[in-house]
């Protein structure tokens, strides 16, 4: 058997087609260089099965292998599943740390310390008012000052307590809106289930579902910031997604199981929101300690006086119970006696202030821990994302180089075609006309 006459044309054509496919792939990469979540693709070329031509190798009898051109074996989406998993773990932690930092920073701002307007200053003003009363024990003006300083102090406690309660309520509302009907969780879950179905259909029809895969990965990234997730790809190419500590998978095939109960160990933003306002939460602890400060203040001051100065034993209920005329600087009833006023002024720097300073320190270190966590996780996430980008991202330099490579390849294939054509022209036009 000899070489088929038109084989060369076919080979050149396969080159043209393969190079064009590669050029198209490169073009698509370049077009999507800045598309979020896009994974680059490469066209993998493969030689066509060669043609055995026994006649040429008559000597050995095995025949010669003649190449039959090239084919595009596949267009591969470049993605590393392990990096995706790593990214999502870090992203969950970052989501939790971000929620912690946001809520606690708000609480810290409500304390407004150190400043000239915080509770520490109000306490100091309160003690100073008793100092003044000790100097003029019978003065109604001094008594008025004591009552007004006490009222301001109590109001500051009330306001701070109310603000902390508001932050807890807001955290609860945010949780409800994220997890509620048509909240982010449900929205993501529905989209994932739909993508699962489309991907399965595409795979069955043998159409590469690359765009849908990118979209699904992107959704999973977003979902991971809300709670810990695990993703298992099933044999039918559908992803099963577990979410937080929920009893059933959030997405299984095309089914969405939501709403479900999450716990404070669910991780991510949702876990952090549950935890902050839960019985062991940081915000709850701050609220409780503030109540303790208020109760200590109330009991130490009231302990000195025959008639209770403060009513209410929590930060929210603290109030001044006496009118200016009822304030006594002395227990003896003598207008010049000042021993009670002095005893109260001597409470300055005592238990209430110590507890308050301790609380400010606690809030400060809580915020700091959350901020440090957040910063560290951001750095880690950036590094993981870099690794992911390094694998899946589009490098324009690389694409430009590929562009030139494939362009040259195409040009060369075209030149081969011309050469073949000229060869055939010789055969068809100029053969057999000798001697005419």
């Amino acid at each position: 058997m000899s070489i088929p006459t038109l084989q060369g044309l076919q080979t050149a054509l396969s080159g043209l087609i393969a190079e064009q496919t590669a050029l198209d792939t490169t073009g698509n990469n370049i077009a999507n260089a800045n598309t979020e979540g896009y994974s680059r693709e490469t066209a993998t070329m493969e030689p066509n099965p060669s043609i055995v031509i026994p006649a040429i190798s008559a000597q050995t009898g095995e025949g010669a292998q003649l190449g039959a051109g090239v084919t595009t074996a596949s267009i591969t989406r470049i993605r590393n599943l392990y990096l995706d998993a790593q990214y999502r773990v870090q992203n969950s932690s970052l989501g939790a740390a971000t929620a912690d930092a946001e809520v606690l920073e708000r609480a810290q701002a409500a304390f407004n310390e150190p400043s000239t307007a915080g509770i520490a200053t109000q306490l100091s003003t309160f003690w100073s008012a008793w100092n003044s009363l000790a100097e003029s024990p019978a003065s109604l003006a001094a008594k008025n000052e004591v009552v007004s300083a006490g009222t301001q102090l109590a109001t500051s406690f009330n306001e701070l307590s109310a603000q902390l309660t508001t932050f807890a309520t807001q955290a609860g509302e945010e949780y409800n809106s994220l997890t509620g009907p048509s909240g982010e969780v449900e929205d993501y879950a529905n989209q994932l289930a739909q993508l699962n179905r489309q991907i399965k259909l595409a795979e069955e029809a043998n159409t590469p579902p690359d765009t849908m895969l990118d979209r699904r990965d992107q959704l999973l990234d977003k979902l991971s910031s809300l709670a810990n997730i695990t993703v298992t790809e099933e044999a039918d190419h559908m992803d099963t997604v577990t979410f937080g500590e929920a009893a059933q998978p959030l997405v299984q095939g095309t089914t969405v199981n939501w709403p479900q109960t999450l716990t404070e160990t669910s991780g991510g933003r949702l876990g952090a929101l549950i935890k902050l306002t839960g019985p062991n939460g940081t915000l709850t602890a701050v609220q409780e300690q503030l109540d303790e400060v208020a109760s200590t203040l109330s009991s130490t001051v009231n302990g000195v006086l025959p008639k209770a100065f403060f009513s209410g034993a929590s930060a929210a209920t603290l109030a001044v119970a006496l009118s200016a005329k009822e304030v006594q600087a002395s227990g003896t009833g003598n207008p010049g006696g000042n021993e009670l006023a002095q005893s109260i002024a001597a409470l300055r720097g005592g238990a209430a202030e110590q507890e308050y300073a301790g609380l400010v320190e606690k809030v400060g270190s809580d915020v700091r821990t959350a901020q440090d966590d957040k910063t560290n996780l951001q750095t880690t996430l950036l590094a993981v994302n870099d690794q992911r980008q390094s694998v899946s991202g589009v490098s324009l330099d690389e694409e430009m180089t590929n562009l030139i490579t494939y362009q040259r390849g195409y040009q060369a294939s075209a030149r081969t075609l011309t050469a073949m054509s000229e060869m055939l022209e010789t055969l068809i036009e100029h053969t057999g006309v000798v001697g005419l």
Partner: protein
Amino acid sequence: MSERITPEMVTSRTLSDLGSSLAALERTTNELSSGNTILEPSDNPYGASQVIDLQSQLDGLTGYEKEAQNGISWESTASSAMTNIGEVTQRVRELLVEGANGTYNNNDLETMALQVEQLTESVKQDANTQYAGQYVFSGTASTTAPYETGSGDEYKGNSESVSRAVGPSATVTVTTNISTLLGSGEAAEDGKLLDTLRTIAKNMREGSAGQAALGTTDLQKLDGNIETLTQLQAISGSATQQLHTALARNEQLQTTITAALANTDATNIPSASVQYANEQAAYEAALRASATIVQESLLNFLQ
């Protein structure tokens, strides 16, 4: 690590670095403009609680300082009243010595008695001295005048003391119990100053009959009263001294605590300024570098 570097990696990394550069710059600006290094408790949790603690101590010292100064003014009011009483008493003593020497007739003695009575009135007025609306010699009955003007000599105040707090668990008594000097007059027969003065006036009125007592028992009693006054003045003087000492110690402590507060919280301006300059330079360099690098790609060089 990464073999492939994509433009997105460069941009995201650059952006993140520029962000932290700018954050550092903003931080230093805040420290410089506020003058404090602890702007929020999270900047330095322990430091923040220290600031609250130290500030409370400082406010406490200011309170003690105010009380001590108030005590000093109180004592100085009391002391000048006692000085007046001392002068009056000396004048009575002179009259007493004059009246005792026998050269004066009954009319002269009557005039002297009138003078003594006037001086008695002035002693009572001095005893009724007020400071900031409070009678300084009434003990804790500070709204009641210790003595009524006129013939009634009964002490209306009480013997309870009033003190000023000048430090943690340090108090100074500022009241002087004037009744130990003045007593409650003739009716009480307590031999105190008012009793003595009334007796002197009575003896002078009695003319030659009472004259003998003037130079003997009356003079002895008066001298005894003058000694009591000197003692009271010494006590008041020592209280003033204590208040001044407390004030000096207070000032020293305030300086120490202010310094501690500055160490914890105040911005070190020179070092912060240098840091600011460095951070600004670094930020500008980063901006310049990113502006140049990120623009470049193979595209710029392909024909």
